[in-house]
Each structure stands twice: as structure tokens, then as C-alpha cells.
């Protein structure tokens, strides 16, 4: 499970990029499968060619599902039901397949017998997302790999709020008659910082989270009211010359036909944010440039800001679930991440240093971290991934 936290962070980034119209959902599907050790992932959304699974390339299995079996899929049916009856309760949640559909019911279904058992869909985890109708993420495996467990559920749960925001974003941006106000609302609602800048880094839009980040006294990025006249606009700038230069390079790429890229921005207090720069999707660009965007359409870059080492330690129970820590191990882990030394932890918990040392060995073993530093990094990233719901 060593690289999972990094993979998760990257996957969240990929999800927003896909939602914003850049990046690809197939990439998201691939990442989800890798993280969860799954074979297939499913997210059916409408598009130009009608509804289809965005997460997998079209193959025989997908064709069969889209052509017939989607209507027989008991998990999809259960999702529709849950969504219709108690959407608020289910949104963002993830569950093992066996909790969604009784095992024997599933094994006796036509869906299983004629389709799922031949197509790596023996074991399932379902995560709930949807706007006006249920569009769950279903992750599956064949029998050979064995059943999913709570660790996997936890992982999908981490991703689901981001998936939900991303499909909201996708829906907003995809509609041509969309008003700016609606796009704005969608971008404001994102749990990541989002900004749209022109090729000169003049800010055309910025959501509340990004605004708050930029206003932080230690932030590595800041916004700058520019002259020469009042009203000449507000620009995005970086505190460090080097980071400002990298940022300009990425924005130049994203606004001139390139793909942009990713960078890290370090705050004065050591906090690190991941900044992704991508070409702004057409719909978004049109929205922010307003009515006059007729003649020469200006290119914009979409910026997505995520804290990477927000100083929020993961909760102990989350660690128990993710790594199979004992309660005591999880508490030691949290204390260590808070900066305590082994000696301090022993004193605070009134146990011997020997005990703490053996707990640390176990923690490192279970989390597959090489050393405490490595483990701290893992924890930092996990902390950042706890969805920031307001």
C-alpha cells in the first residue's frame, strides 16, 4: 500500500482535470483500478454519443454492458433506488457490493450468470454520485483476485466527493447555454481551489477556496492588484522567483496549445500545494471572457490548487481501516505525525520506550513505509485528502 497515498492525490487531480474537460476519464478509470487493485471501473454518464462508461475503453465487455446488461445490473438498480429515496444520505458514500445486493441474490441473477462472472465483475464496490439521477462508480474484480475489503471501501470513499464535484463541473461546462453564474456556482462549490487566468496570469475567475488560499499571509501564491490604473486587473503571482517562472511557463503552455502541467508551490510556513495548470475548456473560457468573446477568442488556463501537506492529521480510525493498525498503533501514529518523538509518545502514553519502538516497527510494517520520515509523508498526503467540506 506504499504508494497509495501519492496515487490517490494524483487520482484526485486527474478527476478534476477530467471533469473540467481536460485530461481523460479513461485515465481516471485506470488510476482507480490501480489504486483499488480492481479490473474494471464504471461511471456511466451521458455525452455526445449517448450514455456510456467513461472509465474504460470500449471493448466487448463494455459493449455488452451498454447494449443490454446495464439494464439488468442489480448494483445500478440499487443505486437508482437509493438515490431516489435518500440521496443526501448516500451521496459520497461507498459500500462493499455485498452490502448493496445480497450475495445469493446476485449470484443467482441473470446478470451474474450470463455476464458478470465472465467479465471480471464477481466482486464489486459501489460509490454513490449523481446530479439528477444516480451515476454510481462501480469498481469490480473477477473471482481470481478475491473479494474487496474495507480498505478498498475507504479508498473509494476518499475519492467519491471529488467524483461528485467533478461530474457537477462537467455538467456545468458541457452546456453551451450555460450562464456564467451557474459555472461560477459549480466552480465555487469545488473542494479544491480553482482559478482561470489569461496568458498574462491576469485572474479571470477564482473560487472562494483559492481566494482564501491566496489571501493567506504565508501562501506561496498571491494575488496582486495591478496598475498602472486602478481597475487594470488582478494578477496571480508567486512569492518565489523560481516558482513564478515555472508558473508562467506552464500557463504559457496551457494558453498556447500545449497541455500545461503540474508544479508544487511552497508556502513560507512549509505547506505545499499542488498546482495543476491546464488549458481551460472552451465552455469555461467562453464564460469567463463574457459576452464579447466573439471575435478573437482568448486562451485561458485553468488552475487547480490542492494542499498537499495540510497540517490535518488523518483520524485514528481512518488509519485503523486503511492500514489495519490497532487502536494503540493508530494513536501512536497520529502523535508521531504531530511531531512528537518516540520518547515523548512513551511518556505521554505512560508506556515503555520499548513498547513504542515495537509499535513503530509495526506501523512501518503495516504501512509499508521505509522509515518514519516516509511514513510522515504518507500521513501528510492522507491528511490533505480528507475532503474539505464546508
Amino acid at each position, binding site marked *: 500500500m506504499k504508494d497509495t497515498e501519492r496515487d490517490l492525490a494524483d487520482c484526485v487531480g486527474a478527476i478534476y482535470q477530467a471533469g473540467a474537460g481536460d485530461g481523460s476519464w479513461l485515465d481516471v478509470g485506470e488510476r482507480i483500478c490501480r489504486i483499488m487493485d480492481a479490473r474494471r471501473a464504471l461511471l456511466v454518464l451521458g455525452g455526445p454519443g449517448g450514455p456510456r462508461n467513461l472509465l474504460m475503453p470500449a471493448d466487448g465487455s463494455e459493449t455488452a454492458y451498454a447494449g443490454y446488461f446495464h439494464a439488468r445490473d442489480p448494483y445500478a438498480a440499487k443505486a437508482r433506488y437509493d438515490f431516489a429515496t435518500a440521496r443526501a444520505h448516500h451521496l459520497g458514500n461507498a459500500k462493499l457490493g455485498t452490502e448493496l445486493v445480497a450475495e445469493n441474490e446476485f449470484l443467482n441473477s441473470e446478470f451474474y450468470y450470463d455476464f458478470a462472472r465472465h467479465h471480471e465483475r464477481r466482486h464489486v464496490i459501489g460509490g454513490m454520485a449523481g446530479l439528477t439521477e444516480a451515476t454510481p462508480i462501480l469498481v469490480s474484480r473477477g473471482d481470481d483476485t478475491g473479494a474487496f475489503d474495507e480498505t478498498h471501501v475507504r479508498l473509494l470513499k476518499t475519492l467519491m466527493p471529488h467524483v461528485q464535484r467533478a461530474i457537477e463541473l462537467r455538467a456545468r461546462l458541457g452546456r453551451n447555454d450555460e450562464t456564467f453564474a451557474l459555472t461560477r456556482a459549480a466552480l465555487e462549490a469545488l473542494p479544491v481551489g480553482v482559478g482561470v487566468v489569461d496568458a498574462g496570469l*491576469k485572474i479571470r475567475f477564482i473560487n472562494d477556496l483559492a481566494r482564501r488560499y491566496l489571501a493567506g499571509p504565508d501562501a506561496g501564491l498571491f494575488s496582486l492588484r495591478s496598475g498602472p490604473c486602478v481597475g487594470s486587473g488582478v494578477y*496571480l503571482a508567486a512569492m518565489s522567483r523560481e516558482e513564478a*517562472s515555472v508558473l*508562467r511557463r506552464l500557463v504559457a503552455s496551457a494558453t498556447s496549445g500545449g497541455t500545461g502541467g503540474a508544479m508544487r508551490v511552497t508556502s513560507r510556513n512549509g505547506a505545499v500545494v499542488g498546482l495543476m495548470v491546464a488549458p481551460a475548456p472552451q465552455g469555461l473560457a467562453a464564460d469567463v471572457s463574457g459576452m464579447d468573446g466573439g471575435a478573437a477568442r482568448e486562451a485561458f488556463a485553468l488552475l487547480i490548487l490542492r494542499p498537499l501537506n495540510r497540517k490535518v492529521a488523518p483520524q485514528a480510525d481512518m488509519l485503523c481501516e486503511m492500514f489495519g493498525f490497532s487502536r494503540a498503533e493508530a494513536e501512536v501514529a497520529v502523535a508521531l505525525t504531530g511531531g512528537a518523538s518516540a520518547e515523548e509518545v512513551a511518556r505521554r502514553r505512560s508506556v515503555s520506550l520499548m513498547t513504542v519502538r515495537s509499535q513503530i516497527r509495526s506501523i512501518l510494517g503495516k504501512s509499508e513505509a521505509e522509515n518514519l520520515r516516509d511514513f510522515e509523508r504518507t500521513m501528510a498526503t492522507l491528511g490533505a485528502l480528507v475532503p474539505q467540506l464546508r
Partner: protein
Amino acid sequence: MPLLDLRQYIEALRNLGEIQEVAAPVSLDLELGAIIRHCSETGSPAPLFSAFADHPSGFRILGAPAATSARRGLAMVRAATSLELPPTSSGIEIAEAIAASLDLPAINPQIVDSAPCFENISTGDDVDLNRLPVPLLHDGDGGRYLNTFGCIVARTPDGSWTNWSIARIMVVDGKRMTGLVSPQQHIGMVAKAWADMGKPMPFALALGVEPSIPFICAMPLPAKVDESGRLGALMRRPIRTVRCRTVGLEAPASAEILIEGYLHLDEKTKEGPMGEYPGYIPTEPARDGPVYHVSAISHRHDAILPVVAAGEPAEENHTVWGTMISAQILHDLRAAGIPATTAWIPQQSAMHWLVVTLPRDWRRRTGIDAAQALCQRIGEVMFSTKAGVVPKVIVLNDDINPDDLKELVWAFATRCHPLLGHAVFRDEPEDPLVAYLRTNEKTAARTGKVVYNCLPPDEWGEALPVRASFRHGYPAEIVDRVKRRWSEYGFR
């Protein structure tokens, strides 16, 4: 209407209120120089002298022929009129027009059969420079300077390049002159080509030429480019020339006075010093200058000699040479991919500052990311040509108008970090006349140069400081409202 000679130019200036007839006899010995100096410093009309207390009549002198005017909005009216541009053109607009002409094909001169300067011709023993009204311009000058604004024609021995330039020339005696012939100037190069063959260089000195000619004579064009063809391109007509009588050259046909002869690079006499464009009268002794032997003097009836009293700004070194250097550098920077909004030598800097302004998006346009690298590049482009005589370059954003001294002083003072981002060039060729050079630097004609970075910190990117001025610091509605209600407030 084209201005084809000095007299047409004087009439045009007279109509614009820029000529002051001076009928009272003035002394060529300092008095005339002092009057011209005072006119240059106060922006008074150009004095047209017709009588001299210490010289016979028959000649006139036009002082401050292209100096600035004190009249509002008309500072560069003489330069603009000389180049047939609208009288209200600013220096920056004039430089822009000249820079643009550099990309036009040359229009070579047209040789005409006769010229008014041949109304009076003296050759051989009749030649006597002392018949001309030659002033002593500054107290401390080492001689009387005949040429301060005339066109020296020089042609390479193979005939492939004909150079027109201005360089000061003083009278030595009735038949000899001397002047500055610097090896880095084209006249020096051409003269050397003749000297290498063991021959003196034929020259023609055309004084009182049509008003556009001194401008091209002061332009730092590359070697082997004929000024006459460039001026044709700028004025969109061939410049008329006429064959000289005693040397194998053609000179501008519009000349009031035409002096012909041979420049002997190997023959030396005392030259200077002379009060010069940096604004000082040198205190060092005269240096060796080469000798111009005069073989013919021709002139119109009642010929007019233009005279520049060099010194503190603004005189023609600043308005003419400065504008032409600005134009050349503007062109060169743009050709090198630097999107200069303008390049301008503020006249008050006496040719020691050149301001380059840039749009906020210069990074995207140049591909250069750091302000220091940009300054380095600007210096490399500038200092590699003969336009690079200006030793200090100020790089600013183009919200600043370098022709507005108040704005420029404020911006240079407040935007220039004493330590960060400048490009320093430690050993570059330089005009020995630059004011502050040390003795060894004057001798070597080399010194240090600098490009001052006055751009915002690199991390700001394209953001600029917000100016707390009436014009910039308030929303347009408020500015309009205040202007509208100004008299309502009780102001007049």
C-alpha cells in the same frame, strides 16, 4: 509641401512663429554664441542674424536651427518641420517615423546640373575661409567653428559607399580647417581607406542644406550604408545632389555654402577644445586633428550659415543626433525581437540616458523570462552598434512616457532597485566626449555601460504597480466627474 532648401525651411518656421530676425549687428566673438545658447536654453525662436559687428556683410547666420521650442505642445516643431511631419509631433513620434523608414528600400539621390551655391565660386589662390562669418562659440573653445550642422561628404576610394555625416570643423587659416575625425566614425573609416593608399580624402562640406539632411547625417546607420539613400526613403523622394568643382564628389544641391577639398589624415594641427553636447567646456588642452585643405569655396548670394551652440540641453546634438539614435535603436531592438514600445533619449540627459519602454507582456513576446536577462539582451543589441554611444539605458514599463521628465524622474527614482537586475557591461567602445570619462578611458575610447532594470520584480509577472495619480488612481467616472465639475468647485 516639401522643403527643398534652407530658405524654404526658414519661411516655414517664420510662419510658425519660430524665427527671430536679428538685424542689430552682433559680434561673432562670443556674443553670437551666447545668443544662440540662450535661445537653446529658453526655447526662444531661432535667431536669424544678418549683420555682424566684427565681420563684413554678405552672409547670414541661422542659430539654433533645430533646437526645441518653449511653446506648449511644439517642443520639437523645428525637427518635425525639418522632416515634413506635423508641427505638433513629439520627439518619440518623430523617432517612430524614422525607425519605420529603415525598412523601406533606399531611394538614391538624383544628380542635378546646377545649384544656387555656384552663384559665387572661389578656387585656388582665391580660396579664403576668413571671408566666411565663423563664430567663436564658447569662452574656452580652441578655435572658430565653421561646421556645426553641415554635411560632410566622403566616398570610399572604390566609390562603393558615400557617407554623409556631421562632425565639428574649425577654421585654421584661410585655406585650412581641422576637426574631429574619430576612427570609429564613418568619416574616419573612409579617410583611413584613402590614407592606407597614401592619398588624402576628397571631401565636400555642404553648409546650410535642406533641413532634413542634418538629421540623416547624424544617424548611426551601419557602415557602408549611404545616408542619402536612407534619407530618400524617409522623405519619399530622391535628394538632389550636384557635382563638385574640384573633387570627384556630389554634394547636396541645396547647400548655401559648399566647401571642397582634401582631408589629410596624416597632417596634424591643434583641434579644439569646444563646448560640447554633454554640456561642458573642456578644460584640457587642444588635441591633434587632421587637416582639411580647401580647394574651393562656393556660396549663394547672401548665404546663410546654420550654427549650433553645443552645450547644456537642449541643442541640436540632443534634438537631432539624439532623435536619430533613438530611432536607430528602436529599430534595432525590434529587429532583435524586443518589442520596445519606444526607445528615447531624454534631451535633458545630454545623450547619457536612453529609455526603453516595454509592454507588460514582454516575456511572452520575447521568450525571455527574467528582467535581468532582458536588460542584458537590450545592452547586447545596443552596445554592439554605433548607436550604443549612450552609456546608460533605463528600462521601464510603457506606462511611463520617457519624454515627460516629471514622470521619468519619478519612475527611475521609485522603480529602480539599486542592486537588482541591472546588466553591467564593463568594457565597451565609447565616444571620448562622454562627460565623466577618466583620462585613460578617453584615450582608449572605452568605458563601462549599464542597463538599469526598472521593471517590477520578476515574481510579479505582468502585474504593474498601481499609480497613485489623478489620472491612474481613480475610476474613470471619478476622473471625468472631477474634470467636469472643476469650475463648479470654484477653481478657474
